[in-house]
């Protein structure tokens, strides 16, 4: 059954249909949120919020846009709002830095292979590089690289033109190349 048909059933009060949609999209939405927030608790909270909003909106659902573009759009907006809140509270950098440091220190103290430690450190470097991108470029990178959306689908989520998506991804790749070139040489 396609998403539109499932949503019509959800609109009519079918909980089984709602569970099918949640099972299908929970993980991709969660991963999208996590890539923004780098925090499991926050990603979990935002993901739950996305599906609560979907449930609330089901009574007035009209199958105009694809369901996943609707879900991803809410997820992106809520994640960006959360990041803005964090900046206001001056919370993220200390907490993330603490978590990162703890993760790396634990790895060093263990008698694990150097390769695993190096991979972990590289992951942190890559994550920081992506997090340093402007919000719109980061959104385009996450949706393209991790959620594997097409340019057209990304333009629907971000509510911009396809040529804007092209430009965002081109500039994002150039910035990432500058920051991560040392890892590929």
């Amino acid at each position: 059954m396609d998403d539109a048909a499932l949503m019509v059933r959800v609109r009519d009060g079918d909980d089984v249909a709602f569970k099918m949609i949640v099972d299908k999209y929970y993980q991709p939405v969660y991963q999208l949120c996590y890539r923004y927030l780098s925090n499991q608790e926050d990603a979990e909270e935002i993901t739950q919020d996305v599906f609560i909003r979907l449930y609330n909106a089901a009574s007035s659902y009209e199958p105009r846009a694809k369901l996943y573009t609707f879900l991803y759009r809410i997820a992106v907006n809520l994640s960006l709002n959360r990041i803005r809140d964090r900046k206001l509270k001056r919370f993220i950098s200390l907490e993330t830095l603490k978590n990162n440091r703890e993760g790396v220190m634990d790895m060093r103290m263990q008698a694990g292979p150097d390769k695993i430690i190096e991979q972990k450190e590289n992951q942190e470097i890559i994550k920081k590089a992506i997090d340093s991108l402007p919000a719109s470029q980061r959104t385009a990178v996450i949706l393209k690289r991790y959620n594997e959306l097409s340019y057209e689908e990304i333009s629907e989520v971000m509510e911009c033109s396809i040529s804007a998506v092209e430009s965002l991804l081109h500039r994002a790749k150039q910035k990432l190349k500058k920051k991560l070139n040392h890892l590929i040489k």
Partner: protein
Amino acid sequence: MEQRKVKCRKIKRRLSVFIDGEATPELEGKIRDHIKSCSMCRREMEELERIWNLIENVSVPEPLPHYYTRLRANIRSNVRPRWRFKWEEVLVPVTTVAVMAFGIFLGTLLLKNHDQLALESLSNGSEELTYLYLDTFDDFPDASLVGIYFNNGEQENNKEAYIQ
């Protein structure tokens, strides 16, 4: 040479689209033909591809288990049944408007009664309320300090004229 540089610039700008598999067949053909003969653009493309593949290797933890159970619980606690009227969202603004309207009505009524009383007093010759009416707006009412001053001034002028 200049033409080649312009061509390289144009190709480099479209490499991202090519790597993402979003290029049209025509553009794809142009890029493939160009990078066959241009080592700089070929190197640029290879670097971008490697960076793009590198960033794929960022792991994400799995969501916490039993997410659906938690979601249902959150929906139950956050969502009002769709058929129920949201009284608390209507009551406060309606009450506020009603209180303001009543206050305006009461104020208008009191002012009207006050004016009514004043009119009646005036017709009865009550001195207490005359200050509300037209003699209030006389330039210098006789009993006022200015009135006394000017009235005395006039008397003095008349005296001088008389003496003269």
